[in-house]
């Protein structure tokens, strides 16, 4: 109302109402000075005011008042005073602004539309493509072994349908990037490769890397990562599962098929980490495809890749579930695998370590202005406020940060070609027992060991949470095929002895039994506050070189190294 009054006041002051004529403010003419859209509103307001004056006069039996006087009386109704609105809401000012706004909105909608189409390519088309390729391969296997002509006919129809689907999805992807030939070329190479019967994973990883590099160069904020599964070709059809599960092992054809699922991610952020004047790139990615597949990892670097991937969705899920479990007082079972008794009472220690971190986060958050503001807001609105989401979010950020350092250490070790220390092989032989160890696996164990030192050194704020995560890996016998399992069995006794001051240039025996793991874990749980320094000291003593200094750079512009050949 005040704006309208200001405008009307201005209009009446500026208009020259001829004496003894009809009131011109009742006509549309004087309102043309204002922007369309508010003219009628102003006129209506004027008429309302005038009507009110006339009714007042009538009630006081003064119905014989001149037009000028009536207008003066009307004017007294607009007591808003002067303001900026009369100057702003002129068509000369408003119309260009309005047009600009309209254009911006249209442009925004158009960009949003294009982004949605691009998102759909990664969210829907690429995962659907790998799914269709799998169905096609499984149908071809089923057709080879099927003797019933009716079923064979159905299978053949399905093969035709899937072939068309694969081609259609491939064309969709190509069409979307038709203006970026590089992206089309790299994505097409990748899509075609997974259609092949047998392409080795290392070859496919190269194609994935090329595609991801091209996306990055072209500022397409998406990332692709494959999940690989190798099986006997005759086991590809879904229907063979129940027979194999409940009917005992079935004899396969002997021919091996490699199946790839293409998982897609949105790149929320990318960062460069600097070590020794070399920059290393890390992508902070969020899972986009809705495939019900869980990788159970927080970050990864593919062999030969020069960038790291941090999986924010997995980090968010684990952090949120653990903080919620803590707040509910639920017993967490993440340290010991399901079905394994907690003989050494490690779970309760793990819970205490974890709650310490979350409590500390909550304490810190309570001091923040943001939380105080939220408290005031909740009091005003009567809504409930909880610290838990904030603590969870902070935990998620910290876990992601620490994971990035772990992955970057892999990049550094690959780049610098980390040499195997003389003691390493002996330790690995002890901890692996009868498990056959290939040179690649051995290297992988060494890299993980090195990365765990960095992880702890740069994840000080997480204190015991990292210790819990590491213990959970090495306590799970189902992870015996993972290099991390063995690295942690070496890491714990090393850190234990380092803090006791008895570590020499040769590390202690690895933790071979549960009691060894428990002993070191319990010891380290009492020294989590200094675990970052223990890690640095131990690394320096055993490798023997200082733990790489890794710094987050402030590079703003996007830059990319030449892709691997």
């Amino acid at each position: 109302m005040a704006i309208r009054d200001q405008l009307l006041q201005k209009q009446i002051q500026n208009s020259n109402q001829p004496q003894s004529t009809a009131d011109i403010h009742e006509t549309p003419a004087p309102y043309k000075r204002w922007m369309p859209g508010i003219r009628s509103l102003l006129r209506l307001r004027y008429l309302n005011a005038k009507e009110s004056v006339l009714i007042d006069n009538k009630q006081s039996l003064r119905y014989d008042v001149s037009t000028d006087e009536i207008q003066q009386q009307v004017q007294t109704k607009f007591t808003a005073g002067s303001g900026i609105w009369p100057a702003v809401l002129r068509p000369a000012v408003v119309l260009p602004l309005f047009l600009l706004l309209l254009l911006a909105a249209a442009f925004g909608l158009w960009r949003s539309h294009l982004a949605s189409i691009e998102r759909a390519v990664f969210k829907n088309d690429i995962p659907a493509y790998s799914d269709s390729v799998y169905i096609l391969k499984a149908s071809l296997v089923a057709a080879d072994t099927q003797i019933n002509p009716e079923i064979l006919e159905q299978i053949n129809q399905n093969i035709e349908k899937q072939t068309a689907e694969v081609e259609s999805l491939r064309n969709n992807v190509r069409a979307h990037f038709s203006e970026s030939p590089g992206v089309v070329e790299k994505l097409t190479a990748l899509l075609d490769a997974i259609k092949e019967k047998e392409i080795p994973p290392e070859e496919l990883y190269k194609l994935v890397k090329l595609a991801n590099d091209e996306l990055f160069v072209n500022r397409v904020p998406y990332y692709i990562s494959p999940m690989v599964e190798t099986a006997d070709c005759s086991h590809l059809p879904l229907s063979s599962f129940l027979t194999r599960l409940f009917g005992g092992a079935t004899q396969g054809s002997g021919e091996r098929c490699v199946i790839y699922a293409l998982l897609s991610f949105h790149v929320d952020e990318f960062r460069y980490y600097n070590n020794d004047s070399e920059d290393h790139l890390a992508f902070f990615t969020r899972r986009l495809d809705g495939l019900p597949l869980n990788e159970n990892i927080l970050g990864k670097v593919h062999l030969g890749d020069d960038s790291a991937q941090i999986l924010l969705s997995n980090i968010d899920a684990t952090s949120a579930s653990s903080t919620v479990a803590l707040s509910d007082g639920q017993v967490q079972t993440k340290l010991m695998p399901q079905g394994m008794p907690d003989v050494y009472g490690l779970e309760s220690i793990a819970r205490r370590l974890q709650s310490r971190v979350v409590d500390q986060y909550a304490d810190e958050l309570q001091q923040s202005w943001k939380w105080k503001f939220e408290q005031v807001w909740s009091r005003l609105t009567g809504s409930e406020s909880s610290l838990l989401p904030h603590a969870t979010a902070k935990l998620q950020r910290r876990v992601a940060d620490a994971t990035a350092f772990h992955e970057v250490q892999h990049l550094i070790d690959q780049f610098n070609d980390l040499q195997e220390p003389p003691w390493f092989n002996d330790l690995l032989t002890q901890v692996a027992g009868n498990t056959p160890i290939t040179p690649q696996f051995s290297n992988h164990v060494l890299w993980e060991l090195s990365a765990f030192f960095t992880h702890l050194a740069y994840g000080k704020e997480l204190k015991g949470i990292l210790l819990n995560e590491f213990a959970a890996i090495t306590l799970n016998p189902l992870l015996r095929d993972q290099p991390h399992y063995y690295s942690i069995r070496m890491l714990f006794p090393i850190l234990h002895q380092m803090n006791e001051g008895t570590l020499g240039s040769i590390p202690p025996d690895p933790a071979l039994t549960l009691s060894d793991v428990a002993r070191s874990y319990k010891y380290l749980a009492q020294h989590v506050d200094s675990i970052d320094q223990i890690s640095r000291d131990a690394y320096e003593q055993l490798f023997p070189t200082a733990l790489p200094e890794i710094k987050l750079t402030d590079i703003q512009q996007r830059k990319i190294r030449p892709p691997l050949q």
Partner: protein
Amino acid sequence: MSKRTTRSAAGRLQQIRERFFHADEETATKPIATGHNAYREITEETRDRSLQRHERKIAVIGDLQDAIRLKLIRRVTVCAGLLLLAAFAYKNFTPSSDQQAPQSLATWIEQQKMLRQVSQIQQWINNGEAQSDLPPPQNLEELQAWLDQIKLSPDLQNPEEEESSGEPGFVPFQCAAAPIPCLAEDIPGAAGDGRIELSHLVRNANSMLVENGNCEATVNLIGEYDSMFGWRETEAITKSLLEISVAKCFMEDEDTNNAQLHYTRAYCASVSNPDPHEAMNSMYGLAKIAFLVQDMQQVNNYTQCSEDLLDYHLQTEPDVNTLNNYITLALMHYELTGDTRESIRVEEKGLAAARDLAPTAEEYQIEDLLEVMLILQMNLMEGYLTLGESEPLYELFEDLKSNPMLEDGDRLVAQGLLVMQDLVDNKKESARNHLNRIIPRYQALTEFTTVWSWDAFDRWQEKTKSSRSAAVDELIKELRIALASDRPPDSLQRLTKVLSAVGGN
């Protein structure tokens, strides 16, 4: 003068009338003076005309307002329609983000993982590294249940070349709320009679070591005994007693991690015994540790498991030794969960079980049974007093009097409780009667203080403070302070005086 004045005034009035009559035709354009001294006379016809014009003007403005409002509504409707159309077009031409993800490939990959997992578990079961209570699953419905109940041996944590110590330790009782896992090596399993001298020797050695605060030495003692002689099934109590004493030793050093480990081992060593005493003590120790680290969920779990353990023993082998442990269980509630009502509930349960057992008890067990009943009855009376439940308190006193094991001292304690309840209920006469029976039986106040329920006294004193005179209150306060000192006054006279004052004498 006055005549001239009247004439001239009448002339002026006529002039004004004429001017106003003329001016009436111009009222639409000319301002009209409305000052307090202005005067005009308007004919009725003129007034009606002006009024009609005024009314018309208001009507015209009303019509204009309606027209503008209609115009505004029309424009808003058109704009909203255009916006809706744009939103619809945008939504229609933008790919949907809630498209269902394809399932086939993901399902197949999950199947492969599941097959590997099941195959691995089958292998562990075949090697004795995992245990299953269910037969292998035959369909998908059974599969999840089968996977959920698989128990993995802690030996799986050892490298494959390590000697496996066999199957996970078997214990006859396991509680879901707080399972206490047992390794096979923690359960004495060798056959043979108990070696009494050897047991005495090792117990004495343990006492000496623990007295010196050397917890690790006792740990070694247990291990060395095992390697030299091997713990036999018949020596389970000795082993569990040693483990409990080590655990207590670690508790004194505030090493709760090691204390927890040894309470667990004590539990594993003793849980197969027909007498749950050591297992209960171990569980009590574990609950105490959970209490110290403020893990109240775990405290409740251990308390629940302790009750389940006693229920299990009562079902399988009802024995007076089992009933004894209801006293420990009540103590757990009293000390750790702080729930007096639960404490009373489990004691009532123990008392009921004792009554059930009485008709079938062997003769040599009767005395023990009555003794347990007596303790439960006395504790229950104190519990009822704490909650201020006078009716069951008096009933139980009657019941207590029929217990042949009731001795003079216990009777006096019970009567002391009744005095307190009487005071709470303001039954001064009854309180005086009971006091008169109690006080003459004591030679000294120190003797009396040992049987008097000071907790209840303090509660009563606080609760009834406002209803007493300041002098009596001061007297009570002095007495209470004197009794709390190391050397309470050796005189009953003072107490008698206080209680008489309180009792109204």
